[in-house]
């Protein structure tokens, strides 16, 4: 089946440090979405990227879609304790209707 690999699995940072999570697919993605799941909560949509090389920003969060549309990244600048949670990427492979979720990156931020 289609797979989306996400790394790292877990990261613990000090408040104020930067954080990046990466997603990679062996085949081309039509689009990729990013979700955040707070501890005890459910995934909440953050953003969707569609175009090759696309970069989108949401305050301290920067999302990138690779030129080949096979990889993506989420970068958080100057993390805050409110950023704690698990970040999932979800890619839609060309020719498929459903999303394939990565296993997520759990972010822990210490004050």
């Amino acid at each position, binding site marked *: *089946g289609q797979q989306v690999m*996400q790394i790292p699995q877990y990261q613990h940072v000090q408040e104020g440090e930067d954080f990046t999570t990466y997603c990679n697919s062996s085949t081309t993605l*039509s*689009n990729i*979405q990013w*979700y955040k799941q707070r501890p005890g*909560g*459910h*995934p*909440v*949509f953050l953003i*969707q990227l*569609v175009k090759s090389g696309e970069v989108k920003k949401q305050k301290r969060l920067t999302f990138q879609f690779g030129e080949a549309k096979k990889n993506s990244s989420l970068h958080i600048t100057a993390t805050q304790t409110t950023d704690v949670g698990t970040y*999932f990427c*979800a890619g*839609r492979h060309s020719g498929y*209707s*459903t*999303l*394939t*979720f*990565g*296993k*997520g990156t*759990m972010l822990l931020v210490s004050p």
Partner: protein
Amino acid sequence: GAGVSQSPSNKVTEKGKDVELRCDPISGHTALYWYRQSLGQGLEFLIYFQGNSAPDKSGLPSDRFSAERTGGSVSTLTIQRTQQEDSAVYLCASSLWTSGGAGEQYFGPGTRLTVT
């Protein structure tokens, strides 16, 4: 309602019993998805409904799992003869359907299933 709702929020059942989990999607959302999330794990796709099309059942782990969607709205996920490995949080999500495919997914709060 304002969002996706699921019931029950928690379900404890004995091994071998059948369970039904319910999902009420956002009104107007034609796409509905079921996922399973085990503790500390990612989202495992189970089944997907889109409008009146035949559902995509490719993620169902065994024939003990089934789902239906009535009237294009409410969906029920049924697990027969539950096993301990079925213990997980079952998440439902709905989305609009666009020319580019499924849009952003709105998740319900989930049903935590514990099989004893």
